[in-house]
């Protein structure tokens, strides 16, 4: 049928893309925010039957950034987190910290760009995370008398993420996520989730630590727990992200302008 030539005269089509924020269609933002809300209902502690309670939604925040780009991703995650807090208080924790963490995570993920566009955005997120990290560690060691080693071991997730985000590993993970090979995509997603959440963790640590002023004993207690939680997030990010990206490629859905998958 493609050989046939239509009788009618060809018209010039003014392509009106739908309403969008920073190139991401609002409808995508709505559904991904809804996904974040829906996954807020499932605390990992219930799934793992161990302590430590963060909702499953945290595993997809990175993915939201990679699919929608930094600005739209941050807005979507933020709104999802906000609504999730009211509806699922059992996983909420402290509202504005949860919201801010979601915003930073998706934004950081969205800045892991490959091309020249927005090449420098990552630096500002990184700088913010570094300053937060320094405040957190400085306050712990110099004001609250936490020992150097407990502080360093406790903040493994934070400084490992800061390093991975500053080195070319950042673009390497992005390249992997963008790759054809599913194995590389998974590796990129896992390590990428570790990095962006670690970054957000550092940013939040400055705020929460300012309030809570945990003592050295708590620092020591949390040494194994924090990386374990982040590992769980990375696994979730990897499994969900891998399936979603493979599926998106199969369906051939229109890619948002700033997506990196």
């Amino acid at each position, binding site marked *: 049928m*493609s050989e046939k030539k239509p009788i*009618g005269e*060809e*018209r010039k*089509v003014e392509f009106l893309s739908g309403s969008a924020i920073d190139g991401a269609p609002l409808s995508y933002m709505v559904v991904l925010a809804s996904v974040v809300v829906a996954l807020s209902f499932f605390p990992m502690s219930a799934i793992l039957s161990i302590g430590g309670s963060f909702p499953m939604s945290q595993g997809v925040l990175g993915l939201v950034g990679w699919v929608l780009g930094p600005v739209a991703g941050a807005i979507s995650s933020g709104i999802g987190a906000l609504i999730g807090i009211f509806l699922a208080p059992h996983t909420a924790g402290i509202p504005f910290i949860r919201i801010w963490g979601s915003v930073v995570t998706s934004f950081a993920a969205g800045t892991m760009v490959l091309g020249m566009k927005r090449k420098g955005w990552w630096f500002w997120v990184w700088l913010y995370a570094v300053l937060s990290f320094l405040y957190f560690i400085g306050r712990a060691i110099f004001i609250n008398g936490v020992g150097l080693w407990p502080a360093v071991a406790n903040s493994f997730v934070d400084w490992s993420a800061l390093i991975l985000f500053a080195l070319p590993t950042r673009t390497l993970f992005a390249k992997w996520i963008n790759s054809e090979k599913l194995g590389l995509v998974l590796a990129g997603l896992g390590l990428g989730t570790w990095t962006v959440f670690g970054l957000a963790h550092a940013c939040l640590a400055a705020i929460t630590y300012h309030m809570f002023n945990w003592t050295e004993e708590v620092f020591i207690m949390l040494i194994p727990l924090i990386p374990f939680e982040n590992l769980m997030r990375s696994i979730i990010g990897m499994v969900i992200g891998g*399936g979603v990206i493979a*599926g998106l490629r*199969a369906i051939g859905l229109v890619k948002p302008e700033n997506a990196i998958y």
Partner: protein
Amino acid sequence: MPDKIAVFKDVSYKYPRSDDFVLLDLNLEIYEGEFLGIIGSTGVGKTTICLALNGIVPQFYGGRFFGSVHVGGLDTVEHPISAMANYVGQVFEDPETQLISTSVENEIAFALENLKVSREVIIERIPQALSAVRLEGTEKKHPHELSGGQKQRLAIAAAIAVQPSLLILDEPTSQLDPVGAEEVFATAHELNQELDMTIVMASHSAEEMAAFADRIALVSNGQIVAIGPPDEIYADIEILESNDLRPPQVANTFYSINKRGISVPKIPVNLNDALPMLDSLSELSQSAEFILSDPEEVTGEALLSVKDLAHVYPDGTKALHGVSVDIAKGEYVLIIGQNGAGKSTLVKHFLNLLQPTEGVVKVGDVDTEEVSVSDLARRIGYVAQNPDNQIFNASVGEEIAFALKNLDFDDEEVETRTVESLEAMGLTEVRDMHPLALPKGDRARVVIGAILAMKPEIIIFDEPTTGQDYRGAKYILEISRDLHKMGKTVIVITHHLYLMPEYAERVVVMGKGTILLDDVIRKAFHETETLKSTYLSAPQAVHLSQEMQKLNSAFPPLLTPGEFADYFAFEGSAS
């Protein structure tokens, strides 16, 4: 002749990233005040025609567009979609995605707000629109609190609040139960008759379209291949069949009779038109060869047995009470009833997804409550309605093997069964593809294949025909018949009664949480009053047969147009 409200002139259109034209040199005129039905199998371009009427095709999708579409004198390519929204109201298939607001009144206000209609006017229009679809008093409700039919009526109210010259409904009833579908058709009919609204509706519901539409346009391969009054289009059975469309059963009945050589003055498309024609039929004699062929009743020990089952949901809803039913090995059972009658609740007890509040459910000798869901899954396969909620893996092969790995079969067994299942479903070629890259009908096969790989004794299909066109629905039912022939016990839940006589043996009719009737299909379908009490209507062939019985008490209880045709002696053969 009334004025033309919309004109397609030599329209051809190709979606971006597609090689074929979905519309090709299509010409169509729509007149003011008419009810135009658009029919055609899935993928022929019905939706594209609907979307071209308000400029979404091509302005939103892009692609290549030839010719022109004018609505109310406006060229849809030259005017922005938002301007066209003043003239054209659209109602879509899925009741859920098209309601975007958190309350009924906001839903109606949404388009008006976007069109900058003043607040005072919006406040006036909300009750008007709601009363036109009989949803008065629901202003503050959340869409979640409405039934499927109410949701679609709200979507219609939101569309007509703009006071468009043209209302388009694209498959508005395909996701609804019979009650909901009836509500939507009645609403569309009323708007057309009483408010003179021009209506364009794409639908697979042949009987309703025959009753309500003024004209029917048959679309095939991107062109209108036939257009005319329903009497004409639906009477042309050959063209319908060659386009994979199902004719209304009355039309099919008289067509089949006619084909036997018994001349009928015309082929009626509505039940009421057919009734006067029965008199002359009743004078004909019965064919000597005619015998009612009913499947042998399956007896034997119950494979599934439900005794005095009651279920109360945590919120206090009594979903089931006093339900007892036995299903023997090798039966093909149809479960029917309106939404909320308890069909799914009952089936979930077979699978231990729900536990009885009272009573016992057994599979073989085992109480289902004592077996884990995953272990029961080996014995009972359940094919849920939406295939996409049942696809978790990145390739067809992995999808089929998924359950086998969960059930700890060794690698060799997993491979053998996967290969078998792929072959049985004709999916060997696409083993390495992503399931979501396949068309919807094929995705349903992937899910069925994945369930067959577990080799269950019982297979349950939950509304397998909803949202499928005639060909798609038949295809799945053929699979169910094959499985039945292999000795499996098959249970089907569906609203599409007219599809089932060729497949099912026994019917369980449910209503308000109890079993109203449990009998062989021939008897059950003829209990039309019982069916009516749970908002189901028997196929037209059953009604015709009952009318014949009034004229001739010896007339048998028939189920299908085919049986009708076979019943009568061929006039020529006697002489």
